[in-house]
């Protein structure tokens, strides 16, 4: 079976030049960095907060904070990984504000392995894209990932949607590599399990629920 090929986007070689110029106070250089990564930051923020307004605020606050703290960016990691770290913290802070009754942290939800044991083992057929319209599909995917604990969906989004490496994800989230791998496996399996309810092969039916 073919494996998943990571969506690796190497930063353009001019990135460090832009970072250096921005550090020296060149706002147009920083604006170029905003243009390069605003879509990614918005997507990550919306995945974590599950709220459009919060995601918009996170984009603004994360870039502003990055600008204010550029002099502290040691360039040991990529600028993007450093920015993601800021954005994730901002997003988690907003999530905590909306859910003061619940502790929201990347360390929560450490449960037994059982929560990820596959129960649904029917293959998906026909292809989900053939079964649902684009809009329906987005609704299902959004609803499904929303049900995942924040710590799981954050790792999934960084690794599998944004294409960060395991090491970069660990760096951005301040987690160990085994912790990232364990959360990623469980996030993938839990999403698979939940999506199977919609996409599994239905013999003799019209395919829809």
């Amino acid at each position, binding site marked *: 079976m073919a494996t998943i090929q990571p969506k690796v986007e190497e930063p353009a070689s001019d990135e460090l030049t832009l970072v250096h110029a921005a550090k020296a106070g060149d706002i147009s250089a920083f604006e170029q960095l905003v243009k390069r990564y605003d879509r990614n930051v918005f997507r990550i923020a919306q995945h974590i907060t599950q709220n459009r307004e919060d*995601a918009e605020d996170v984009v603004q606050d994360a870039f502003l904070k990055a*600008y204010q703290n550029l002099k502290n960016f040691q360039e040991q990691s990529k600028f993007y990984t450093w920015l993601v770290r800021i954005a994730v913290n901002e997003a988690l802070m907003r999530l905590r504000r909306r859910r003061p009754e619940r502790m929201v942290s990347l360390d929560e939800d450490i449960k037994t392995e059982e929560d990820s044991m596959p129960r649904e083992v029917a293959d998906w057929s026909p292809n989900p894209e053939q079964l649902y319209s684009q809009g329906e599909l987005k609704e299902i995917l959004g609803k499904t990932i929303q049900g995942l604990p924040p710590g799981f969906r954050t790792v999934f989004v960084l690794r599998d949607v944004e294409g960060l490496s395991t090491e970069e994800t660990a760096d951005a989230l301040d987690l160990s590599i085994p912790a990232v791998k364990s959360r990623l496996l469980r996030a993938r399996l839990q999403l698979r399990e939940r999506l199977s309810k919609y996409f599994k092969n239905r013999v003799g039916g019209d395919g829809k629920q």
Partner: protein
Amino acid sequence: MTCSEFLKELTDYLDDAMDPQTKAELEDHLQWCHNCYVVCNTTKMTIEIYRESHLYELPDDLRTKLRTAIVGKCKSHDDPEHA
């Protein structure tokens, strides 16, 4: 290899981050275990469908609005008197 052992290695297998010998053992397991084959295949589809879904795209008008606000705030930070 048991199904639980297979499951533990699933993430590294899908990411192609394992030594050739372990990979061969996993693929041998997939040859005869239909359940693991389905779990592996549908997990791979899960990742691909999210990656290609364009969930939470930033619309162009909102993008411009946010960028203008960010640049404005950065300028105010540099020069608070002209905020």
